[in-house]
């Protein structure tokens, strides 16, 4: 920086110019509850379980790095006389979840039976233990309970999506 620059506070004015220029720029933030960002298609958010598709293999519970998925099942004869696994419990301790998505990776069914790509990220709750400890009903029904539509599971054919809509 030359002496003249220093005397005339060139650096100071450059800084002021930069910030001043931003006065006219579009704001980067959005006023949240009114305006929302749409999460991306792969966003890992709230869990969703499809009980019918689930084959009770417990791979998700095994793969979970922090062991927050608890699965119990027993065998039952279905009307055709074939033995079928029935879930006794499928609990998920969401308050410890770190949304790594390994359970979804591990799920062998196609489409996935448990998935996080629900584009749902508003998980705040007033009661930590009640709201964030998900049982099978909450896991499968929360979107219906909240009255929102969520995107279909990854791998689910598009037709199913359209079918769901009406």
């Amino acid at each position, binding site marked *: 920086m030359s002496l003249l620059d220093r005397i005339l506070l060139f650096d100071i004015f450059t800084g002021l110019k930069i910030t001043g220029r931003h006065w006219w720029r579009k704001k980067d933030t959005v006023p949240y509850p009114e305006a929302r960002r749409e999460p991306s298609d792969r966003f890992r958010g709230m869990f969703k379980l499809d009980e019918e598709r689930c084959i009770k293999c417990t791979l998700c519970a*095994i*793969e*979970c790095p*922090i062991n927050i998925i*608890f*699965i*119990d099942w027993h065998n039952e004869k279905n009307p055709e006389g074939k033995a079928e696994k029935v879930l006794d*419990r499928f609990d998920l301790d969401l308050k410890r979840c770190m949304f790594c998505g390994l359970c979804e990776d591990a799920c062998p069914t196609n489409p996935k039976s448990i998935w996080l790509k629900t584009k749902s990220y508003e998980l705040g709750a007033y009661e930590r*233990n009640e709201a964030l400890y998900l049982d099978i009903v909450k896991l499968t029904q929360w979107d219906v309970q909240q009255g929102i539509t969520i995107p279909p599971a990854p791998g689910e054919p598009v037709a199913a999506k359209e079918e769901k809509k009406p």
Partner: protein
Amino acid sequence: MTDETKPPTPPPPAGDTTPPAEKPAAEAAKPTAPAPAKPAAPAAPPKPKGPTANDASSDPVVQRLAAALPGAVLAAKELVGQVTVEAPPEKVPEVLRYLKDVEAFTYLVDLTAVDWKARAPRFDVVYWLHSFAKGETRIRVRAGVADGAACPSVAGVFLTANWMEREVWDLFGIPFSGHPDLRRILTWDGFAGHPLRKDFPVEGVDTGAAIYPDHYPDGGGPSVKDPLKKVVS
């Protein structure tokens, strides 16, 4: 992978005194040892697929080290191009001093320990050195330390060893004799036990803290093991 993308820039000088890191080191070891299994091992009938360990006592640095400090090199071995020298713990400061001053391994990359619960000297203390001057070479020094025995500190050789040794003392309980300031570093003073020992429970021990007593055991640690849970991971 790494071998593939190796730049052609620093070719290992033939018969050079230094085995440059990674692949060059492997090449340096080639004359005596069978080549380390290439990533895509053509025929891998034995179960452990992947690279195999080779003897590296012919490595020039190791040879010079053995010559300079008799009794300092118990064994030398090479795996995926990384040379490991086994040394008796009492010789470690000497070895590191030699490597630093003579062989220009001026940078102590890391210092850590491994707990081999059942083995005779229970712990391995591992030093990992780097040389900028001689073609980005790395060498590992390993010393078996018995439980309760002190390992001589190298904080006088490398300043950076100070905190690393404190960490090893804290987490493994290996005392370093001659360390200027051997206090716990990650856990607090007065913590009972050394967490990275294999016999320290993962669930933690009672530390007297009580957070969320309905979900977590008294004394801290992760949440109560689910009694109903069948699946054990």
